[in-house]
């Protein structure tokens, strides 16, 4: 899978690699630098393994100061930098360039401060998403965004991609749950943006930084909002014999004014795979399964579940089954959360992340099935129905080059479809390398030009996470026009 072309590596940089490695070792210690070939290759991909490229060198800093030293060095020497959290990106966000330095944040994983009075927690950015909740759960708190990879993904990566998760329907995505960051700019300067209070003075730079895909700087610390856990939370499973009925049911629930914590959708192939893994008791003979979770006081949960089931009844559900115990709830969620990995049991997959207006769901699902059939590929759908964030998983054989290419073509067509019905390319995974060349489907050249000018403010020489987000053609065009301006 190589539809997206990577920028050519700079041979002059590669020629200097041994000197650069020595310098980096002097800066942060031999222990924090990985330069031998096998080691570098272990960093050649994240969770989008279709794209692979070993970096020139990997550094594993232990502190903000380490990151600052490395960035200052890279800035001075014109070196490219690729930040990496846990390498769980599904869009190739942490894909290295051959002439780049990967800065792996995995060693910066401490909790720095938990403030229960102000309901905030300050952490280093290499901590995993779930570890944040683990750190405060004994006191009855949790951190709301919960990507399916939350066990392993880092909060730094979450900030870069503005990650969501099943429970974001109620609590919002990362940007709604972050209060401040400490960030190292490309020249090594350490800045604090926002803080442990609701609104920072001046421009809201924080909103700009969240979702910038590691192209504005490297976040080393974050102050996040934590919330008290609800007294009770329970999911109900609703099985339907058509995806239309399920789609209409979702719209009706949201339309009624109820805000569940999550509404998750699985189609028949996805149900089968997840059930085989989690033994959650999913119904196997339905076309679509919704997992709707509500929370609150015990009475509230019971009442909301009853209301939801009442609404669902008018769409002729084949299965209505509420969770009976915390263990049952855990099982129901285990299957959904591990859906992508469980899919790996049967096939390689290519995971899409388009978002659509809810009302178009049935039509889009049937088009997706059609597109995949046209490319002679199977597809399974697991996604956050509540906010219209689709995750079609296109199944293919990675050892078959033709099939891999067809998968990528089908994926691109699905994303074009999402945009054409009024949605967008990415809900929560980010653009990365995967959707880079589709950005002009969604944005006009002038939209892209504005975004690239903002990027240039933070990183004038485009050293941070290069080759991602913006189509290379748009990039080259903007460079040409800049050169022309200068000449004039």
């Amino acid at each position, binding site marked *: 899978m190589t539809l997206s072309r990577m920028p050519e590596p700079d041979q002059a940089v590669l020629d200097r690699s041994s000197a650069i490695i020595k310098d980096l070792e002097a800066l942060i210690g031999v222990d924090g630098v990985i330069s031998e070939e096998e*080691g570098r290759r272990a960093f050649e991909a994240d969770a989008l393994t279709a794209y692979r490229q070993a970096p020139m060198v990997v550094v594993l800093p232990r502190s903000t100061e380490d990151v600052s030293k490395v960035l200052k060095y890279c800035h001075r020497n014109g070196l490219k930098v690729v930040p990496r959290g846990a390498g769980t990106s599904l869009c190739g966000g942490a894909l290295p360039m051959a002439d780049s330095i990967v800065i792996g944040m995995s*060693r910066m*994983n401490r909790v720095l401060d938990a403030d229960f009075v102000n309901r905030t927690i300050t952490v280093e950015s290499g901590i995993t998403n779930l570890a944040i909740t683990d750190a405060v759960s004994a006191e009855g708190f949790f951190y709301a965004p919960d990507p399916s990879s939350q066990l392993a993904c880092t909060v730094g990566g979450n900030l870069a991609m503005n990650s969501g998760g099943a429970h974001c329907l109620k609590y919002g995505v990362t940007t709604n749950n972050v209060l401040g960051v400490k960030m190292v700019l490309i020249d090594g300067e350490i800045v604090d943006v926002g803080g442990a209070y609701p609104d920072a003075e001046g421009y809201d730079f924080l909103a700009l930084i969240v979702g910038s895909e590691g192209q504005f700087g490297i976040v080393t610390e974050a102050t996040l909002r934590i919330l008290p856990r609800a007294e009770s939370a329970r999911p109900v499973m609703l099985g339907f014999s058509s995806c239309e009925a399920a789609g209409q049911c979702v719209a009706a629930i949201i339309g009624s004014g109820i805000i569940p914590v999550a509404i998750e959708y699985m189609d028949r192939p996805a149900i089968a795979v997840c059930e085989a893994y989690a033994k959650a008791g999913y119904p196997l003979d339905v076309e679509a399964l919704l997992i709707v979770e509500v929370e609150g006081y015990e009475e509230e949960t019971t009442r909301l579940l009853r209301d939801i089931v009442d609404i669902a009844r008018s769409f002729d559900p084949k299965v209505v089954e509420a969770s009976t115990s915390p263990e049952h709830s855990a099982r129901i969620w285990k299957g959904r959360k591990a859906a992508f990995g*469980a899919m790996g049991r049967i096939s390689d997959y290519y995971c899409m992340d388009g978002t659509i207006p809810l009302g178009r769901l049935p039509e889009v699902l049937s088009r997706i099935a059609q597109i995949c059939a046209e490319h002679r590929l199977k597809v399974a759908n697991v996604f956050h129905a509540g906010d219209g964030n689709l995750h079609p998983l296109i199944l293919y054989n990675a050892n078959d080059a033709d099939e891999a290419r067809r998968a990528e073509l089908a994926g691109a067509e699905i994303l074009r479809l999402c945009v054409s019905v009024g949605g967008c390319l990415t809900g929560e995974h980010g653009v990365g390398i995967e959707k880079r060349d589709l950005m002009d489907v969604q944005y006009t050249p002038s939209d892209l030009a504005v975004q690239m000018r903002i990027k240039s403010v933070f990183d004038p020489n485009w050293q941070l996470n290069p080759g991602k987000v913006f189509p290379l053609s748009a990039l080259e065009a903007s460079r040409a026009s800049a050169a022309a301006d200068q000449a004039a």
Partner: protein
Amino acid sequence: MQTNFTPEQLQNPRVAEADAILRRCVHCGLCTATCPTYVLLGDERDSPRGRIYLIKDMLEDNAPASPEVQHHLDRCLSCLSCMTTCPSGVDYMHLIDLARGYVEQTAPRPFKERFVRQLLARVLPYPERFRLAVRLAPLGRPWLNMLRRFGLKQLAAMIELAPPVLPPSPKFEGPGTAATEDERRARVIMLAGCAQQVLRPGINDSTIRLLARRGVDVTVSAGSGCCGALTYHLGDEASAVAFAKRNVDAWSKELEKGPVDAIISNASGCGTMLKDYGHLLKREPEYAARAARIASLARDVSEFLGEYELGAPKRWSSLRIAYHPACSLQHGQRIKEQPRELLSKAGYSVVDIPESHICCGSAGTYNIMQPEIAGELRDRKAKNIKRVKPDLVAAGNIGCITQLTGQVDVPVVHTVELLDWAYGGPVPRGLEGLARFVSNVPEPKQRRAEDFIHA
């Protein structure tokens, strides 16, 4: 994940097996989060996903293992935490075993390391030799610092792990059958083990008493011995196969004598190995079928007891027990709840240890081969245990018991020793001080029908 083996490479059954395992991995990275070495070191190469990548490259290149690869594969504990985390069902256990064999065959090791490995392989599996070695260990204690200075940290770790005093030999060493005095309900073979019967013979005694009390005949077969896990995880497959064959031979004879309900192991590291005999010997035509049968009969003692109603305990205590799930039990054999339930039913109050999925650093001979990482994991585990303030710690594996003894201020014993105590057995070694918190449950008075008639 894509792999790049040539058709010729795939002719080799081992490469074909590795390929099938590698193809399942989707590189999602979930395993990194629960891998003890990644949690400590924060380096992709010390995570399951990173190691899988190193192994893939090594096998694809078909070149001798580089020192880097050897280093990072050596650092894997084989705790198999990644396998209970992996949603794709990647068979990491067999992949790392296979890779270890490849590394041993293709990459040299320095003399010092070969010496330590040979020493372990020649001593640990043989109870007499091991007993002698433990008795000699105190002689080395004054020289610990010197040994470390000369780069013999592994030898130093070995001496430090040896207990200062050895308990007396077990009551029943076998071979033979400890027959139940009750009505016979089952017949089992017990793996008597190797190092365990020297370090804590009470475990086998407790197991036999506990089973015999419930109508189970317990046989220790002549000719059976070490399960082979020790040398297998050091990359010496040939030696492991030899040990396994010896056990399969010995137990096959026992199976011919009459029906056997289970082959019981009370050291979960060994149990994991027994359950894998079918796989280990699948390429040995004379053994494959018998090994598979043996593997299907293998049960951890807690697994077997879980199927039995043990009845009301004879002694009652309010002792607070931190249950430490050995990795080989919770990840290797996926037995998590049974030991806790058995302890609860026996009247103990059981508490869970935070981060209980993370290894204590024992991991077979890991605490000898990798003393620094093992030490960090041990201290981390000890800290977590202390947080729940238990009266004692129970575990189902002798390795963990040895690793944690003396680190947590409270005794560390085997689950079956506590069960045996509750159901009428003697005070387990080291718990004499706690005996005053345990009292006999009064026997219910035999009442006749007339007693209920109050005229």
